[in-house]
């Protein structure tokens, strides 16, 4: 029997649904919206339908957005979308769910564990100190038997402290609050030094040690302290659960991964327990002596740490024969230094833009900036974005690139890429670099262009265009009533390398031409018969389409400051005296385009 729901029932379901439901067509226009969805935008369906839907969507994935909750306060909504057909056209069915409570609950849970952990420390301190004062005989003689019980008490407070520490650590990691200090590091060196620390313990227990490490280094991109923590845990466990035989530690490269194995000939883990080995508070094996009792959190933390490094951890074990724990870390590649922050930004599920700049002659610039040109450019551009109220993460990728993550940004606007170009040039000028710099720049958007870090980076690289080549192909229009002066300017520009230069004798001719094509730069005379330069600027600034066209004013006269100032609401206007010094003209045009 098929489950056919009558049409009006279906309508009523959608109408009454507490989840927001929206249909967005391929032009991002809302074609249908139910009351619950409209409510999240503090609006009514009638007001929103046929209007653009301004949040970036990625079918099959969920993203988060700010919403207005029923109580009027802002909250978080989870957006999901799937491809559907709407009136014969491709469209997206978007559902929005208020997840504010869920996020709040998660945060409360983390805060609670955090607070409890801290609150436990103070009484633990008093207990431990009080007992140890007695045990040490400070308050009077203590018998050997009493000492034994007092040390039991201390051992257990220490154990409790370890649990508190681990619990806090795990909570931080799970909440994504634990920041990794990733750097290029040699895994072999780290493994060797840890093995050295454990060597005496292994020998003391009468166990053999079998270390198999390749001769060359093996670079990974990781937090040394955290990897040390994992290795301490794995090797410590192996020793703890092995009474006779061998502890083995090996590292090898497998398909671009650095794989580290720690194996033992200990008691092993039963088939039944094996799947639970990385769970919290799971403790296996015979009760070992209480002095090195585990917290039941070590393996859970270790696995989380490795996963935070985009690696994986697994275990193989045969009961009564021994266990092998292994983890894999991605081998170091320079790109990881960019992919990592990208991945973290992706996890926040907010749209962002990735801008890239590549310098083609870093060394030449380095001399002029007094070293570290990439870092300095990154900082300059960061400040410029921050002045625009944006949150940015600049990443310098040696030897020649700077990437800038602009968070929570709806940078779909095609103008954002030319803004980057201008910012880059401004940064060069700010650093006192006098010459034209040969650079490429590009942009990729999350989630529109890609949803994986390496693909997004790749997409940004593919988008990169050479600024100089692009600039030389830009269309420059010169408006002047004196043919000789036009010719002089045109000759100079052609000499610089510009290929598309058009000459127009007055304002009316310019606007006639602009019906067909728009200039990328306008070189304008102010004093012209008919329409004056002021009138031309006025008309250009009136229209949204033309207000951003950069203008270079060439004038033999003093500019009438009063009239001029009202147009200079943008940096895209510069003035030069006529006739212009060739070098100044070249730099000005470079700066404006």
């Amino acid at each position, binding site marked *: 029997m098929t489950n056919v729901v009558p049409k009006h029932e279906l309508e009523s379901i959608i109408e009454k649904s507490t989840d927001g439901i929206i249909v967005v067509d391929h032009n991002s226009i809302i074609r249908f919206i139910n009351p619950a969805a409209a409510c999240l935008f503090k609006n009514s369906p009638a007001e929103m339908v046929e209007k653009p839907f301004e949040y970036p969507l990625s079918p099959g994935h969920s993203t988060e957005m700010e919403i207005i909750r029923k109580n009027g306060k802002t909250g978080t909504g989870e957006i999901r979308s799937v491809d559907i057909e709407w009136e014969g056209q491709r469209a997206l069915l978007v559902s929005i769910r208020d997840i504010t409570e869920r996020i709040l609950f998660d945060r409360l849970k983390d805060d609670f564990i955090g607070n409890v952990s*801290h609150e436990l420390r*103070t009484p633990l301190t008093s207990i431990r*100190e*009080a007992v140890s*004062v007695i045990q*040490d005989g400070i*308050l009077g003689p203590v018998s050997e038997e009493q000492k034994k019980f007092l040390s039991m008490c201390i051992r257990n*407070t220490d154990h409790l402290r370890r649990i508190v520490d681990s619990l806090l650590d795990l909570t931080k990691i799970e909440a994504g609050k634990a920041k990794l200090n990733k750097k290029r590091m040699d895994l072999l060196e780290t493994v060797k030094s840890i093995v050295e620390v454990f060597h005496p313990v292994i020998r003391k227990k009468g166990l053999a040690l079998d270390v198999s490490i390749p001769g060359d280094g093996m670079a990974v991109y990781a937090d040394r302290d955290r990897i040390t923590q994992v290795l301490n845990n794995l090797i410590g466990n192996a020793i703890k659960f092995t009474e006779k035989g061998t502890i083995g530690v090996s590292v090898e490269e497998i398909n671009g991964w650095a794989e580290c194995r720690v194996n033992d000939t200990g008691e092993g883990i039963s088939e039944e327990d094996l799947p639970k080995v990385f769970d919290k508070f799971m403790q296996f094996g015979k009760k070992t002596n209480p002095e090195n009792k585990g917290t039941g959190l070590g393996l859970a933390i270790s696995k989380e740490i490795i996963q935070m490094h985009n690696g994986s951890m697994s275990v193989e074990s045969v009961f009564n024969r021994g266990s092998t724990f292994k983890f894999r870390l991605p081998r170091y590649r320079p790109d990881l230094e960019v992919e990592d922050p990208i991945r973290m930004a992706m996890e926040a599920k907010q749209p962002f833009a990735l801008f890239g700049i590549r310098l083609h002659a870093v060394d030449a610039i380095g001399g002029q900036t007094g070293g570290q040109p990439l870092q300095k450019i990154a900082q300059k551009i960061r400040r410029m974005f921050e002045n625009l109220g944006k949150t940015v993460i600049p990443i310098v990728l040696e030897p020649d690139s700077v990437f800038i993550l602009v968070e929570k940004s709806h940078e779909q606007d095609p103008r954002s890429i030319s803004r980057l170009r201008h910012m880059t040039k401004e940064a060069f000028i700010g650093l006192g670099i006098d010459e034209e710099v040969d650079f490429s720049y590009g942009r990729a958007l999350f989630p529109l262009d890609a949803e994986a870090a390496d693909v997004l980076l790749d997409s940004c690289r593919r988008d990169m265009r050479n600024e100089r080549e692009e600039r030389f192909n830009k269309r420059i229009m010169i408006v002047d009533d004196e043919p000789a002066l036009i010719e002089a300017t045109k000759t100079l520009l052609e000499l610089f390398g510009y290929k598309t230069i058009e000459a127009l004798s007055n304002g009316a001719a310019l606007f006639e031409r602009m019906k067909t094509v728009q200039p990328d730069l306008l070189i304008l005379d102010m004093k012209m018969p008919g329409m004056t330069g002021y009138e031309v600027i006025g008309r250009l600034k009136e229209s949204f389409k033309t207000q951003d066209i950069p203008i270079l004013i060439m004038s033999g006269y003093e500019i009438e400051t009063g009239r001029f100032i009202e147009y200079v609401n943008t940096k895209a206007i510069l003035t030069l005296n006529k006739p212009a010094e060739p070098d100044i003209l070249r730099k000005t045009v470079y700066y404006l385009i």
Partner: protein
Amino acid sequence: MAKILVADDDPDILATIEVRLRANQMQVITAHDCNQAIKMAYAEQPDLILMDIRMPAVGGISAFDSLKMYTRTEKIPVIFITAYPGKEVEEKVAQMGAAGFIAKPFDSDQLIAKIQQVLARQ
């Protein structure tokens, strides 16, 4: 005999630390809040101050700033104790110029060693 001022709002911790330090031939004075600690530091001129960071009203960090304001107390080394340990806190107190940092719960041998090390530096 070195004179140590211990400031903590938990009387049990004060009591246990006091006994421990006395057993190590140190003279101990105690304060249960920061205002009292500042007054005592000024009047008694201890050789070292052990101070809890989290205390009601005035916290250990602001008390530290106050101590640095008076010539009589500015040179007294301060070791912070805290139940809220972490790399950030440790770095922060080091940057402020504190003589040391100990996380609760601590091992008494470590505590004594730390105090003796700071005293030896003076």
